[in-house]
């Protein structure tokens, strides 16, 4: 059981961003994806989720053996894929409670009704754990939220939807250390044998809190190096230049 990306190429407009990327995230593991700005990390996240602006020109993405390429974004989500957005959208007039309820509702079998009491109990307990004020349920999704509140709200959604595989796109960006701890605790609470994670980050700092099983380095649309968590430390200390040199030498 794994989320598998094979030789994936993707373009936006005329520009090729992903250039034959391969990656396998087995259930139960946390993989970190690091790379410089513009290496294609966020594109990978969006392509996996099925963003319509990108065109897959080659390769495949499989969730537990099933190709996602011809599947609409909403179905990918219901199949168990979750993307925590780098820039979560503000949706005026749609409350968090109603938004999440709609997302939970579509996962129920046909004819099955959402248990409102149980739903709110679950929602409130998860909000408490993420230190999100319960009053937020009545606020419009992400509207007027601080950066940290938005990211906590992404983790709340992940906790409510209980995906099989979660892709966290720069969830640490814009977080102070307290918010970073809260978000990391939220992610760690969901770690387990039934779930795989791809944690996309720019900074090693996050990986002190969410300790990865594998670290991948992305350069120019490909994974060029993989290792254990020490690789992240080395990148933090030495930057990316040596990776690019080694990669160039190998090519």
């Amino acid at each position, binding site marked *: 059981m794994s989320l598998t990306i094979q030789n994936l190429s993707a373009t936006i407009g005329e520009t090729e961003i992903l250039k034959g990327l391969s990656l396998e995230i087995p259930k139960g593991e946390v993989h970190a994806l690091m790379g410089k700005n513009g290496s294609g990390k966020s594109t990978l996240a969006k392509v996996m*989720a099925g963003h319509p602006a990108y065109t897959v020109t080659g390769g495949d993405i499989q969730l537990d053996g099933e190709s996602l390429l011809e599947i*609409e974004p909403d179905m990918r*989500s219901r199949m168990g894929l979750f*993307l925590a957005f780098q820039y979560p*959208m503000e949706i*005026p*007039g*749609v409350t968090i409670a109603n938004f999440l309820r709609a997302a939970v509702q579509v*996962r129920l079998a046909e004819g099955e009704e959402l248990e409102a009491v149980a739903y709110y109990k679950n929602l409130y307990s998860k909000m408490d754990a993420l230190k999100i004020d319960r009053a937020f349920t009545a606020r*419009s999704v992400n509207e007027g939220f601080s950066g940290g509140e938005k990211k906590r709200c992404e983790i709340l959604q992940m906790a409510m939807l209980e995906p099989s595989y979660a892709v966290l796109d720069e969830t640490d960006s814009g977080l102070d250390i307290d918010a970073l701890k809260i978000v990391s605790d939220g992610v760690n609470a969901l770690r387990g044998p039934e779930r795989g994670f791809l944690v996309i980050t720019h900074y090693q700092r996050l990986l002190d809190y969410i300790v990865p099983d594998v670290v991948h380095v992305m350069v120019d649309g490909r994974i060029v190096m993989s290792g254990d968590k020490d690789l992240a430390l080395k990148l933090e200390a030495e930057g990316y230049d040596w990776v690019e040199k080694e990669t160039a030498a190998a090519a």
Partner: protein
Amino acid sequence: MSVTVMEPHTDVKAVWPDWFREQQTAAMADHEATPRPTRKDEPWRFANLAAVDLTDFRAAAPVASEGRLINASKGLDEVAARVIFGNNVLLHQESKALPEGVIFKPMEVAARENEELFRKFFMVQPVELGSHRFAALHKARLTTGAFLYVPKNTEVVLPIEIFHWVEGENASVFPHTLIVCGENSRVTVIDNFKSSDGKRAFSCGVNDLHLERGAELTYVAVQDWAPESLAFHINSTIVERDATSTALNINFGGGFVRGESLSRLVGEGARSEMFSLNPMDGKRQIDQRTLQDHVAPHAFSDLLYLNALDGKSRTIFAGLIKVGKKAHQTDAYQKVRNIMLSDEAEANSMPGLEILADDVRCTHGATAGEINEEELFYMEARGIPESVGRRLILNGFFQSLLERLKSPSLRAYLSQLVGKRLGVK
């Protein structure tokens, strides 16, 4: 146009006083003497005049089942009073929690029992936004309606509900609501316009609101006529010193709806909020003309109209903020926002300003846009199908207007109505 066939079935002669019947005769002459609108008339620019054809419409027969309509007239769980009209006849009236001194009765009864009040406030404002001819027809054909007077320093805590039903193919109704809020009084009224059978009908309605010094009125009209129907909703609101009017027109139905709203701020510190919420679809059209008339200084008005246009629907908004010579330090805002859901829909927005005073703050504008695809993708990424996501976003667009209403219970009630109309929940 055969107006004679629209003569009411009820025995108007028996219920209205002679002086009013004389006014009605004069109103019919006025109606007939007033030229039909043409597109050269400024208030009818861009208007679909073909839609304003009354030829087919007939007088409304008595409704088939009063009991059924009374049972269907359920809005809020708790109301101070409720009155129900069907085809120009009073069907039912109940008062549960009206404070001492509040007058809430059918128009014709008020004309007899409260003649002075009635004469002082009944259709005294000139119809300035184009439909004088139709307002005259309304006056000539009026048989009943809701008359509400809230005396000085009186608060009606629970809302008052009014229902106007129409029934029968091509039936004509003339709904009327007159609300007078005495000094420092406070009341909320929900005026419902509904079709009994979904058949094409004609409604020519007037609502006049008058707020005396310091009064606070929330007036919500929920229009849900059958989709082929022709409807006029002609409003005037007079706001005296330090009074606050909040009026919301929700248009769920109607084939061609012409709405005219005039708010006149006649006292210092007067406030008027004018809202409208219009989910448009099919071939439905709405033509709204508004005037924020600042006569007194230091007054505030804020107009926000939201349209969502699907199918081949069409909207016209023409609004004017008029700041008179003495209306210094006016704060006036006007905004219409259109969400285009279809390439075949058409939104026409004509915001306008006419400022004769100094030191005023006015903004106006119109926007048109589509549903934000990134918002939609965000929803899809949570498993919500695109069609559901669109409805949620649209619902959110309208909910953001409802948030402007002060009462949480009213907000919740209207939010549910709007959600239901959009197929959310």
